[in-house]
Structures are given as C-alpha cells and as structure tokens.
C-alpha cells in the first residue's frame, strides 16, 4: 500500500507498480493523484545557483548565503512539507528572527485558526463517514480538488450509523456561484448564489432557521433547507476558497451561522485545504505561536496581517519559498515584487517561482520518494514511507542543513 500526497485527503489505500521510477499501474488512485504520481519523472527541480547547475552541497551553502545577514526574511510555503520539515522551518524562523507564513494567509487561514482554537466545532472524516447525515459544501468543489472526498467520507460510503446508502441516509447541499462538478451530483441540493452573495444567503438561512420568512426569491426552498438543517442529526460543513473570498475575509456572519446551527443541533466544520499538509503547518505554527500564519519571530512572537505575504513583500529583504509556487498564484503586482527579491526555492518540481530563484534546492516527493508524517485536512495524523528508490533528500534534511549553515 502507498499513500498519495496529491491533496490533503492523504489517501492510504493506493496500490502502485513501478517500472524503475516510472509508474506502471495504479489502483484506487484518482485522476489527480495519478497526475501527482506521474509527475515523478517530469520537470524535476535541480540544484542550481543563478541558473547554473551545482551539486546539492553547494546549493545548500549558497542558500544559506542568500539568507545570511538579512534583517527581514520571509519563509513562505510549507503546505507541501512534512511535519518534521515544518517544525524545522519554524525553528529556522526563530533562529533568523524572520517571518513565517503560508498560503492560508490569503485563503482559509481564518477558518482553520477558529477550528484549532476550538471556536468552531469540528470532527474527523471518519466521524463524517460514520455519522453525518447532512454534508454542506460551501464555495467548495472537492469533486475537482479532492476527488475522493465524497466517495471516501462525505456522501457515498456506508458507515456505522449510515448503513443504507446515500439516497436514504445522507443529504448533500452545495452552495456555490458555479454549477461545479460537485453541484452537478448534488442535483436538488444545489443552491446557486451570485458572486459575493454568501452574506445574503447566510442572512436568509438564519431567518429560516429562526422560523422567520427569509427575504429571498424562493422562500419555500430556503424554509425547507432550514428545516432540513434543523433536523440533521450530525451535520458537516466543508468550506472552500469560495466562501473565504466571497466574504472578503470577514467571516463573522458565517461563524454566527455555525453557532446558530449548533444551538439547534450538531454541525462540524472541516476546511477543504489545498496542499497535502496545509493543516499540518497551521497546527504546528499554532502550537508554537498561537496563530496559523503571518507570524514574526523577530522579537518573541508577533502576529498580524502585516506579516502575511500580501503585505510583507513590501518590507522584506529576502525570501525562502518551500514547496509552493506563489509566483503563479499571487496577483501580478505582488508576483513582480517577489521576482525582485533575493530568493531561495526549495521544492520537488520546476515552477514559476523556482525559475525566478537565485538558488534552488531539490527535495524528494513525500509519500513516494521520501517518508514522513502529515495532517490530513481534518487534522488526523498520517504517516507514510517511501515506495520508490530515489537520491533526493527529504525536505526536513534540507531545512536542517540550511539552519546549520546560517
């Protein structure tokens, strides 16, 4: 059995045959996971300094040189890193007195932080499979991003209290601006909202839950939804970027709705996070600093939006990116700022970010070439071994060696 680190579901029932390093046959691996496995032989990152190939030792010492003597370093990425590497990364941030951040600062960090603080009720995917009778996918399209979400946990499997199959035992509700592939299968459970319409939808649903007439076009449908949610025995809400961004980061209305639902029955929140170990980084930094992202270790622990990548690029003087491609994701003006920075990039593959780095340090693909541990997006710890031979270093070793050298 092998694991898949293609997304944050960390599927653990994968069977794979290799022919050398080439994947010959896989079982139970979804299409996205298969792409992840096949990527082992495509566009791999090489150790380089200023675009010239060097050996790994030289790349590591050059990486340390880029960081040394800098006052305001940003260590960014970490979602595609093992727990051990994340821990080492936080130690490195402390040693350098630098800022550490991850993509959650511009995506679902606020939701994850509430979950970790215990201010949003949560549960595991195994609980969802065994007990959930209502699954809400909000601005979230796991059929595309986390393909086995519905089949392994949230809609189709039989579970302890869910023995009769999804038609009788479960209900899927999708709230989205687009008829996504997940909305496609939810059929009647799809609530199409306008872009930015989440706040109005929440208001209407709050009214329906409170027994008032909601101010929406289809009052009956909203009242029915309210009744359905009130009667749920074990509800689960899966959140996506769509929800976080629709509300512009002001999620109070959503948090109130979850509070209201929990006065009436039980509803848990599990954010559908992108990278395989985003949850791990958020948890590790939270344990260390009380926050899931945007932390400065300059003078003790400091936290705030000014330490998120969106703002900190204005004041930092060097960047180390680990297992992430912010150049491809960030808005053009920010990508330009990033391109102008002295930069070290640690990763498995060539990306827009590694192409712009002064020093690149390759690492092995976790779960395939190197072992490690990670937290699934519901917080459950998963441990995996290497399944194919490789000369690539594990990410933790790379971070530790840079730490020794600075």
């Amino acid at each position, binding site marked *: 059995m092998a694991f898949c680190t293609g997304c944050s579901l960390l599927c653990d029932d994968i069977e794979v045959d290799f022919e050398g390093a080439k994947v010959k046959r896989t079982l139970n691996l979804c299409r996205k996971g298969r792409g992840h496995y096949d990527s082992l032989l495509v566009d791999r990152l090489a150790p380089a300094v200023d675009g010239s190939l060097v050996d790994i030792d030289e790349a590591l010492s050059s990486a340390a040189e880029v960081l040394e003597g800098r006052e305001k370093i940003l260590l960014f990425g970490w979602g595609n890193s093992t727990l051990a590497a994340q821990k080492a990364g936080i130690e490195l941030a402390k040693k350098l007195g630098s800022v550490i951040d991850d993509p959650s600062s511009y995506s679902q960090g606020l939701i994850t932080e509430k979950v970790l603080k215990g201010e949003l009720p949560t549960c595991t995917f195994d609980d969802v499979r065994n007990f959930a009778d209502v699954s809400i996918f909000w601005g979230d399209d796991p059929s595309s991003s986390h*393909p086995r979400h519905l089949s392994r946990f949230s809609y189709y499997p039989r579970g302890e209290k869910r023995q009769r199959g999804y038609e009788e035992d479960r209900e899927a509700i999708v709230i989205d601006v687009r008829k996504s592939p997940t909305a496609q299968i939810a059929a009647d459970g799809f609530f199409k909202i306008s872009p930015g319409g989440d706040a109005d939808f929440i208001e209407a649903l709050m009214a329906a839950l409170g027994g008032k007439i909601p101010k929406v076009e289809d009052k009956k449908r909203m009242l029915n939804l309210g009744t359905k949610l009130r009667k749920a025995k074990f509800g689960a809400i899966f959140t996506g970027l769509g929800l976080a961004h629709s509300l512009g980061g002001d999620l109070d209305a959503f948090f109130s709705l979850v509070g209201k639902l929990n006065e009436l029955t039980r509803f848990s929140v599990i954010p559908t996070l992108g990278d395989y170990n985003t949850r791990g980084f958020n948890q590790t930094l939270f344990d260390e600093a009380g926050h899931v992202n945007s932390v400065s270790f300059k003078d003790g622990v400091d936290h705030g939006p000014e330490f998120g990548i969106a703002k900190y690029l204005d004041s930092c003087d060097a960047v180390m990116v680990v297992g992430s491609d912010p150049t491809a994701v960030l808005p053009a003006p920010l990508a330009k700022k990033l391109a102008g920075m002295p930069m070290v990039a640690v990763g498995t593959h060539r990306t827009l970010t590694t192409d712009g780095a002064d020093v690149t340090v390759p690492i092995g693909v976790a779960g395939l070439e190197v072992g490690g541990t990670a937290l699934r997006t519901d917080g459950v710890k998963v441990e995996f071994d290497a399944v194919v031979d490789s000369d690539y270093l594990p990410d933790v070793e790379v971070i530790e060696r840079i730490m020794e050298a600075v």
Partner: protein
Amino acid sequence: MVSVMEVYQLLPKTNCKKCGLPTCMAFAVELLGKRKAIEDCTPLVEEPKYETKLAGLRELMAPILSADSTETGMVIHTEKCYGCGNCVVACPVNVANDPKGTAIGRGPVSGKAILMVEDGVVKCVNVDQCRRFGDEKVLCNACIVTCPSKAIEFI
C-alpha cells in the same frame, strides 16, 4: 440511451422477414440487444436506396457495438472520468460484494467488486454481476447519477 424507435426509423420498415423475424420492430429490439447484427438485415446492406439509412444506423449503433461497451450497455468515457470512485462506492453490487472495501469508501478488498479505479479512471470488471446484466436486469443507475463529469452512460 438509444431507443428502439430510433433504430426502427433507420430500418427498411417493410417487414420482409428475411432476417427471420416477423417485423422490423422486432429486429430493432434484437439489434439493440445485440442478438442480431446489422448485416442480418440483407436489404438494408445490399440495396443502394437504403444507403443513407444504413450509414445512420451504423453511426447510431457504433457506441453500442464498440469494444468499450460491455454486455450491460455501459459505456465509460474515460477521458471525462475523475477517478473519484463515487460510482465504485455507490454501486449496490459493490456494497453487497465488498462490504469491507468499496462499501465503506475504500478500494476493493474482496475481488468481487464490479467497478474499480485503475490508472486514475474507473473500470468495469465481473460485468455479469451488474444489475443491468442478463434476463433479470433492473435499470439501476447508481453509477450514472453519482458521476460528477457525466463519464458513464448506458446505451
């Protein structure tokens, strides 16, 4: 799904009985059930006036007669498939045959599953176990309605 009427419209409709059946309608039913071949309708194949009809019928029947189509008429458009396994887990035959694997959302463990995900896409095996197979068939559609990308159809 191709209907008997669609097939019938593309036959000579002369009820000539050369195929051994009493009517063209009966032939349409047998053709759809793959118990007769298009070539069994000799006038259609031999007489030039039916050229357009023949071409239409071949086009209509192509997916049904293709290698991808199993005995149940199931066609998997692998180019659309996400490999999500929704159909694998929702399939009532898998649930009954593989209670410790596919029924609870995992890969098959019993060897009796009829749907599984191989190389990133779904594959149908042990097809004679499908509810749509054979004389006692029922029109189960669990694998179709659970598909996020309309990758499965029955023809």
